[in-house]
C-alpha cells in the first residue's frame, strides 16, 4: 500500500512521561506503513482520568482540545487501547448533550484507531522487520479487547518477529487490576488482582511480558519489581519496531 496518508499520533500522557521510546516506536511503525506522521504539540491527555472519576466538566474541556488538535488528520492513532477507546467509544458520551461538539466527536471517533489494529486492518501490514530472541507473552488490556476489539492483530505481528516465541496466558480475559485511578484508590485489591495475573504470566515461562497499554504494564512491572520477580516488561510497539534492546520497564539503564 503506497498511498500516503496523514496520521496524527496521539502519544498518550503515560508514554510521554514515562516511556518515550513507545512514541518513537509508533512513529517508526507508522512511517514503515507509508504514513506521514504528525505529533500535535498541544496534546496533553485524552481526559479519561477525569471522565472515569465523574469530573465531567474537566473531561469536556480536555476533550475539546483533543478534538480541535486532531480532527484535521486522516486518521488518529494511539499506542493504547485505553486512550483510543476513550476517544472512539466515550467522546460521544462526553458530548451527548452538546449539539455543537457531538458531530465533531463522532467524526473524530470514526477515524481513531489503536496502533496495531490500524497497521493490520487499515494499512494491510501483515509482518514487521524486527528481531527479538526469546519467549514473549502478550497481555490483552481490557480496553483493547472490549472497547477496541484488538486481539488477533498483536499476535499476528508478533508472530512475524524473528526469533520470537509467543506463549499464551491461560486466562486472557481477566483484568490485571490497574484500572487507572483504581490502582491508587484501592491498592490492596489492585495488588491481589495483579498477583493473580502475574502468577498466570509466570506460569507461561515467558522471558518477556508485553502488551498494548502502558498503564497495565507499569502496574504489573511495578508490582513484579516490588515482589522480586524480574521478567522483562516492554510495550509491544517497542518489540515490533525492533527497539527491544532498550532497558525494560523498571530495569536499570545499562
Amino acid at each position, binding site marked *: 500500500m503506497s498511498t500516503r496518508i496523514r496520521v496524527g499520533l496521539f502519544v498518550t500522557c503515560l508514554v510521554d512521561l514515562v516511556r*518515550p521510546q513507545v512514541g518513537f516506536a509508533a512513529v517508526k511503525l507508522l512511517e514503515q506503513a507509508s504514513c506521514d506522521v504528525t505529533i500535535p*504539540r498541544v496534546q496533553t491527555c485524552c481526559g479519561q482520568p477525569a471522565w*472515569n*472519576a465523574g469530573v465531567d466538566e474537566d473531561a469536556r474541556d480536555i476533550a475539546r*482540545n483533543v478534538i480541535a488538535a486532531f480532527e484535521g488528520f486522516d486518521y488518529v492513532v494511539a499506542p493504547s487501547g485505553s486512550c483510543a477507546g476513550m476517544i472512539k467509544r466515550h467522546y460521544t458520551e462526553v458530548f451527548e448533550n452538546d449539539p455543537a461538539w457531538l458531530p465533531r466527536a463522532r467524526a473524530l471517533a470514526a477515524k481513531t484507531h489503536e496502533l496495531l489494529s490500524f497497521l493490520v486492518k487499515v494499512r494491510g501490514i501483515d509482518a514487521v522487520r524486527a528481531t527479538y530472541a526469546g519467549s514473549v507473552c502478550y497481555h490483552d488490556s481490557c480496553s483493547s479487547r472490549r*472497547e477496541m476489539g484488538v486481539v488477533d492483530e498483536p499476535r499476528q505481528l508478533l508472530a512475524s518477529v524473528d526469533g520470537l516465541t509467543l506463549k499464551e496466558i491461560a486466562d486472557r480475559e481477566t483484568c490485571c487490576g490497574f484500572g487507572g485511578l483504581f490502582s491508587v484508590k484501592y491498592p490492596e485489591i489492585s495488588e491481589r488482582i495483579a498477583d493473580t495475573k502475574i502468577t498466570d504470566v509466570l506460569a507461561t515461562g515467558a522471558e518477556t511480558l508485553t502488551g498494548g497499554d502502558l498503564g497495565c504494564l507499569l502496574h504489573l512491572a511495578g508490582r513484579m519489581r516490588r515482589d522480586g520477580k524480574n521478567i522483562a516488561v516492554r510495550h509491544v510497539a517497542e518489540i515490533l519496531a525492533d527497539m527491544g534492546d532498550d532497558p525494560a520497564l523498571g530495569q536499570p539503564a545499562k
Partner: protein
Amino acid sequence: MNQDPRQFPKAAREALNDPLLRPALTRMKMNFAARRAHGVHAYGDFETLRVAGRDIRDYSVTHLDELLETLEASVNARGGKVHWAATAEDARQAVLAILRETDAKTVTKGKSMVTEEIQLNPFLEANGIVPVETDLGEYIVQLRHEPPSHIIAPAFHLTKEQVADTFRLEHTKLDPNRSLVERNTLVQEARAVLRAKFEAADAGITGANFLAAAEGAAIIVTNEGNGDLTRLLPRTHIVVTGIEKVVRDMNDVSILLRLLPRSATGQAISTYVSIMAGPVGERAEQRGFHIVLVDNGRSKLIGTEAQDVLRCIRCSACINHCPIYGAIGGHAYGAVYMGPLGAALNPGVMGVAETGHHANASTFCGRCAEVCPVMIPLPKIMRHWRAVEHAQGLAPKSLTFGLALWAFAAKRPRLYRLGASLLARALKLFGRDGAVHALPLMQGWFAVRDFPAPQGKTFQEQWQARR
C-alpha cells in the same frame, strides 16, 4: 460481619487476608466462568438471544405501570391478591398482616434476595413468627447468623467442615458423634431436618424470578425444589418480589428462561421451573396466594441514567466474572447486592453517600457488561454514580484535589509540557536501579508497587529536539 457499606475498604482488607476465603473464591471463579462459557457455546447464537432479552426487559421497564396493573387484574381473576409496598417497612407490614390474618406461626422461605433487602426475617422473629430458610445455602448462613455472600450461592465462602460444625452445633436432636465428613451426608441431613419444617409450616414465602402480567403468574427457578415445597405444602403462599420483575407474558418468560440459568451456572434450564398462577388447588381448605410488590427505591431509577439496571434478572453472571468480587468476595460490600450489580444499583436505592465505594471499586474492565444477559451497561452506570458523587462534593478530597491539578495542567499545553518535563526528571532522580520505590505522594501506588523510572526527558522534549 460487615453490614455497613461505608466500611468497604476495611472489610475488603479483611477479606483479602482471610485464608479460608481465597480457595473458595478461586473455586467459585473457575466453576462459574467455565460453566457459563460452556453453556453459551452450546446454545449457538447467544448474542441474538441477549438482544431479545434486553428488548423484553427494556419494554418492561418503560411500561412498568401498565404491566403491573395488568398483572394485578390477572392475579385477581385467578383468586390471588396483590399488595403494593412502596417502602421496605410497607412490605414487612404487608407480609405480617397476611400471616396474622391466616394465624401463621411458622413460615418456610424459598430463596428471596428481596426479603433480605427488606430485612424480613428479624422483623418476623420480633413479631413472634419463625421464618425458616430452606434453600440449603440460605439455611446454612441463617444458622450461622451471617448474611449471604452471593446472590445465588449464598454459602460458597464456607468449607464443608464449617458446614459440618454448624450442623453439629444447631441440629441438637441428632447424635453428636455422627459422621459428617461427606458432602452428601450434610445434604441428606439438611433434607430431613427441613422436610419436617416444610410439613409443619403454616405459610410459605418465596421470591419470584419473573412475573407474567397476562397470566398473573409468578415464576421461580431452583435446582433443589425447595421453592415448590415452600409453596405447595402450607395454607398460604406469599410471593415477595421487586416491581421490576414483571414482563408481558409467559412467552417473554420463556425467552428469559433461556438466558437466566445459562448465564448463572451454564445450565440449559434449572432443575425446577415453577409457574405459579393463583392459589394451590391441592387441599380442600381455602388457600391463599399473595404477591407483595416491593418498590423500595426502584421507581426512583426510572428516567435516570441508571434506569437500565432495572433490566436485571439476577443471574449473578456479572458478580461471577468481576475481578474485584473475585478478590474480596461478597461480605465486604456490606449490602444485599454485591459486585457490579451492587455497584450499579446500591447508590441509586441506598444513596451515593452510603454506597459510594461500590461504584468506585471498579477497574471498568467491562467483563460484567460483556456477560450480562440483558446487556446492562454496568460500567457506564457506575461512572454516572461517580459523577453524582463528585457533583455532591462527596469524593475523597485528596483525589479530587490531585485530579483538579492534573486537569488544570492538561488544559494548558505549555504548562503541561513544563510540568511533565519536571515530573519526568524528578521521577528519574528518585529512581534506584530503574525504579522508584517510594514517594511522599501517590501513597496508594507505592504501598504495593514500585514505579518504573522514566528516562528523564518526555517524548515531546525528545521529539522537538530531533526536528
